[in-house]
C-alpha cells in the first residue's frame, strides 16, 4: 500500500473545497488523487489490492451536517442521509413498513459487520467485484483503460448478461441500488459547481467504450442524500436475492419488485434486476408487459422474457438468463401474494 494523506474535513463545503483543490473536473472520482471515504469497506479493500490509488483520503465521517446521518420521513417520501449505515436503514421501522423492498435489499447484503460500517452513499457507489478487476496483474479496461478485458473470454460466471459492452462485462453487484432504481429515487449531490439532484437512474453509466467512467459524478462531488418518493403501494414490495449460499454472498440474480394491484390485475409494476447487469437495472419492458394484466405465472413469465430479451451471454454466465427470469417470476408471484 502506498502512503497517502488522510484528512477529516469538518463540513461539506470544506470537503468539497479540499477535493476540488486536488482534482480537476475531468477526473473520474475513482481515479482522482483525492477521494472520499465513508465506511471504507469498499475503498480500503481496493487500496490494499492496488486497484484504487488515491494519495489523499477525505474522510466524510466527521462532517458536521447532521442530516447526513438521518433518515427523515415526510409527505413527499423518505430521505436517507448519505452517511446512514446500511444496518440502521435496514432496521428502521418506516423503511421496513413502507418500503420492504429497501429493507430487504439492505438486510440481504454483505454481513452484519459490514452493514454496521458501510454507508448508504458508499453502498450505491461500490465498485464491481469482477475477479480480473480486483487483481492488478490481469488486463482490465475498467482499471487500465484500453488494456483489454480478461473476463470476456475468461472465467465469467459472475458477469453481466445485460448492459454489457465489448469493452467490459462487469456486474454491478449492489442490492440497495435495485430497490432505489425501482422506486424512482433521487440522488442529492454537492460539489464545487453547486448542489444538484439527479434521478438515481442517471447516476451509473453503462460501460460502453469507457468502462472506467462509472458514474455521472465529478471528483469533488459529495452525495449528501438519497430521496425515495412516497409510494403508498410500495408496501407491497420485496427483494428476492438468489445466491450460491444462504448469506454473505453477492446475487447471482435478484429482483426488486413493487406492485400496485387492483385485485389480481396490475395497475403499475416496478421491477429492477440485480446480479445480471452492468449497472442498476430497471426492467421497463417487463413493467410495461404487466400493466393492466392479471398477474399469474404466464404473465410473469412473459414479463421475464421481456426483461431478458436483450441479454447477451458469455461462456459461463448463460445460466443467468434463465435464472434471472425465474427469479423475477418468483419475485412477482411472491409480491402478489404478500399480505399487506
Amino acid at each position: 500500500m502506498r502512503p497517502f494523506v488522510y484528512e477529516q474535513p469538518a463540513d461539506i463545503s470544506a470537503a468539497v473545497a479540499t477535493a476540488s483543490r486536488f482534482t480537476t473536473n475531468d477526473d473520474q472520482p475513482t481515479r482522482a488523487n483525492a477521494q472520499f471515504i465513508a465506511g471504507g469497506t469498499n475503498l480500503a479493500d481496493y487500496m490494499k489490492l492496488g486497484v484504487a490509488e488515491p494519495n489523499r483520503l477525505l474522510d466524510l465521517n466527521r462532517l458536521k451536517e447532521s442530516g447526513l446521518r438521518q433518515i427523515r420521513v415526510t409527505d413527499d417520501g423518505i430521505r436517507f442521509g448519505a452517511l446512514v449505515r446500511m444496518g440502521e436503514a435496514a432496521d428502521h421501522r418506516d423503511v421496513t413498513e413502507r418500503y420492504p423492498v429497501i429493507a430487504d435489499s439492505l438486510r440481504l447484503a454483505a454481513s452484519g459487520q459490514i452493514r454496521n460500517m458501510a454507508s448508504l452513499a458508499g453502498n450505491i457507489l461500490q465498485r464491481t467485484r469482477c475477479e480480473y478487476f480486483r487483481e492488478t496483474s490481469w488486463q482490465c479496461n475498467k482499471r487500465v483503460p484500453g488494456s483489454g478485458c480478461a473476463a470476456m473470454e475468461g472465467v465469467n460466471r459472475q458477469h453481466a448478461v445485460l448492459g454489457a459492452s465489448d469493452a467490459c462485462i462487469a456486474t454491478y453487484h449492489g442490492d440497495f441500488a435495485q430497490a432505489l432504481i425501482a422506486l424512482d429515487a433521487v440522488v442529492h449531490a454537492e460539489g464545487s459547481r453547486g448542489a444538484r439532484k439527479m434521478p438515481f437512474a442517471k447516476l451509473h453509466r453503462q460501460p460502453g467504450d469507457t468502462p472506467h467512467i462509472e458514474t455521472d459524478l465529478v471528483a469533488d462531488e459529495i452525495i449528501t442524500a438519497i430521496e425515495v418518493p412516497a409510494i403508498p403501494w410500495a408496501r407491497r414490495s420485496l427483494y428476492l436475492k438468489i445466491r450460491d449460499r444462504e448469506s454473505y454472498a453477492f446475487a447471482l440474480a435478484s429482483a426488486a419488485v413493487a406492485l400496485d394491484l387492483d385485485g389480481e390485475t396490475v395497475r403499475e409494476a416496478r421491477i429492477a434486476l440485480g446480479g445480471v447487469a452492468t449497472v442498476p437495472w430497471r426492467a421497463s419492458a417487463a413493467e410495461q408487459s404487466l400493466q393492466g394484466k392479471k398477474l399469474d405465472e404466464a404473465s410473469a413469465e412473459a414479463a421475464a422474457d421481456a426483461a431478458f430479451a436483450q441479454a447477451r451471454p458469455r461462456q459461463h454466465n448463460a445460466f443467468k438468463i434463465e435464472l434471472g427470469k425465474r427469479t423475477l417470476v418468483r419475485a412477482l408471484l411472491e409480491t402478489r401474494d404478500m399480505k399487506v
Partner: protein
Amino acid sequence: MDAAAPRPKENMGEPLPRVDARLKVTGQAHYPADLPTANIAYGALATSSIAKGKVAKLRLDEARAVPGLLDIVTYGDMDKVDKPKFGNSGATSIGPLHDRTIFHDGQIVALAVAETFEAAEEAARLIRAEYEEEKPTATFDSPGTATIPAAGKSPLFKEDVKAGDFDAAYADAAVKIDQRYSTPTQHHNPIELFSTTAYWEGDQLIVHEPSQNVTGWKVELARQLRIDPAKVRIVSPFIGGAFGSKGPMTPRTAIVAVAAKRLGRPVRCVTSRMQAFGTQTYRAETRHRIRIGAGKDGRITAFAHEGWEVTSRPDAYVVGGTSATGRMYDYGSVLTHVSLVQADRNTPGYMRSPPETPYVYALENAMDEMAVALGMDPVEFRRINEPKAEPIGKKPFSSRSLIQCYDQAAEAFGWADRDPKVGAMRDGDWLVGIGCATAIYPTAVAPCAARVRLTVDGDVRLQCGSHEIGTGVRTVAGQMASERLGVSIEKISVEIGDSSLPPAPVSGGSISTASVCSAVLMACDAIRTKLYAAATAEGGPLAGSHNEEFELAGGKILAKSGASAKVGDVLKAMQVGAIEEYAEFAPKGATPEALKKLYAGTPEFHGGEQDEDSVKYAFGAEFVEVRINRYTREIRVPRIVGAFAAGRIMNTRTARSQLMGGMIWGIGQALHEATEVDRRYARYVNRDLQDYLVPVNADIKDLQVILVPEVDHAVNPAGVKGLGELGNVGTAAAVASAVYHATGRRIRDLPIRIEQLLV
C-alpha cells in the same frame, strides 16, 4: 448436557473443555506470527503473473526507491543453499529463486524486506518482472498435458489394487453402471494466513511458522541451509487452521531464513490470501470413471475405479484413493487404475482426507446410482454388500462398525419416513430430497516420543513435539496423562509445537491422537511402574503389597486391599523431587529404523491397509436433507446427521467438533468450494474468500453427530482410531444423492450449483 459435549458412552472419555479454550477465545493464544519478536523487519513476496516461461529481467529500481526498504532477496541470493525437496516435509522440489524458470502461476520471484509491512508490500508490488512467456497447460483436456501411471510414483501408493477377473464379472453382470465423476481444484484457505518469522542467534536459527510437522521441517530446513539440524528450531505453538496446508514446508521458509541472515535481524513474512493460492499446496482437480456390476439380488460382482489427478510438472503428487475405495465393499472382483496428469501448475498436496474425499465421493455417488438401477434402498444395498474381509488381500477388518453407524444415523434421521420416489417429497415451493453415503478413513499410527514429569507437588509436565492444529491435541494428551497418573487436568501443563521437544510425527493422516496418546501412555506407565516399585519396596508406604493391582487417583496410589499412599510421599521416600520419563513409542510392525526415522522427520506410518494381520479403518454414515426451490433451484441443506465409530473416543467434545467441522466442510465441498482456473493462462482466478465460497453459519442448520461405541485393541495401545479426517468423507455424495432424490437430476461434477439444476 449440551450438544457440544456429548455424554460419553462405552469406551469414551470425558468431554473436558479444551485446556487452551480460554486463551483462544480471549485472543491470548500466540499464533506464530503473533509471537513477540524484537527489532523485526517485514518481508513481502513478489510472485509471477505467468504460469510458464522464464524471468528474463527483474527490474528492482522502483522497489529500491521505496522509503524503508532494507533488502531484496532474489535470483542469485539462494545459490549457497540447497533447493527444496518434494516429499513429506517439502511441498515442492521447485526452488523458485534457484532458477529463473517459471513452473506455475504465482511462483515467488523475490522477497522484499523493509522496516514496515506496508513498505515491504509496496516494494514487492513495484518489482517488475519481464518474462519470456510460453503457452502454459492448465488442466485436464488442455493441450500439452502428459499422463503417466501413478503407481510407484509415491511411497504411499505402490500399486493399483485389483482382485479377481473384473472384465468377466462385469460382462456377466445383470445390472451395471459406467459413469464419470469429477471434483474441482480446492485450496485450504485456513483463516490464519501463511507466515514465516526467522531470526538467528549466532549460528542458531529460530523459525516461527504455523507447521504440522516441526521435526520434519527442522531437518529439511537444515538440509537446505546446509547446517546441522541441531541448529534449527521451529516454533509453532498454535495453528489457526491447517487441513494439510501446513504439513509440508514451502520454499518461502528458507528464503526468509536467508533474508534474516543477510540483514542480521528477525524477518517476518506473512503472505497475502491471494498469494497463498500459488505459494502453498492445494487439492488438485480429479476425474473418475466407475463401473459397477451386480446381480439382480444386489450383490456386487464387479467394481472398477479409474482415477485421473492433476499434478505439477516436476513433482508426482499422488492422491490414489483407490486403495480405500477398492476395499470398501464385498465386490467380488476389483480393477483400479490411477493416472497422473502433469500440467503447468504448482505442486498439489495434502488436504483433509486427501485420497478419500474425491475418490469416496465418486464411489458413493456411483453406489447411489447403482441402488437406483437395482431399484433398491441405498442403505439396504450397502448392507447386502458388507464384507467379511476386505476384497483385495482378504484380510479381516480390525473392527468395522459401518452397519451400526447406518442404523443409528438412519434412526436419528428418520430415514424410514422417506418416500423413495424421485420428486415425491415437497414442501410448498421447495423440492425435498434425502440421501446418504458412507464415510471411511484409514486408521494409521506412527512412532512418537514424549516426556512426562511428575513432581512431588503432584504437578505434571508433558512435552511432545506435536501440533495444535485445532483438533485439541493439548487437551487429549493431557487427558491421557490425567487418566494414567490420577492427576486432575488443571495440574497438567502440556508443551507442544516446538522442534526442541521430543519428536512427534507430522500431524496428518489423522494419526496424532493415536500416536501422541500411545507415547504419553508409555511414559505415564513407566512412571507408574517406578512409583509402584518404590511404594512397595522395603520401607516404602505400601511395602509388602506388591502382588496387588494398583490404581492412581486423586494424587494417591490405591491398592485393592484398601491401603493407599500419597504420590508425594512416595517421591519423598525416593528422595527425588520428580520422576521424569522419556518414552519412544513405536507401533507394532515398526521397522528397526522406525525411531531413527522419527528423529529424522520422516516417520513411518503403520495401519490402514499395510499391516499383515488386518486392515484398519474408521467408518461412518451420513444422511442429509436438501431443499431446492422449484423456480430458482438454489440448494440448501437444512439437516444432516452423521454417525461415526472410531475406536476409543478420548474426548467426546473435541471428537464431535472434528466430525462436525468435517461434515460442514463436506457440505461446502458439495455445494460451494472450487478454485477457478483460467484455462488460457493456467492461473487461479477467485483467489480470495469473496469468491472462494465456503459455508457460512446460515448454511448450517440442524447438524447432529452420533458417536457409535467401538472397541478396537488392534489399532494401537491407546485403542484410538483417528477421526479428524473422517467427517468430510462421503458428505458430498450424500448431498448428490439427496439432490437426485429431490429432482431426478444426477450431478456428477462438484460442486453442485444452481446452473446444473436449471436446465
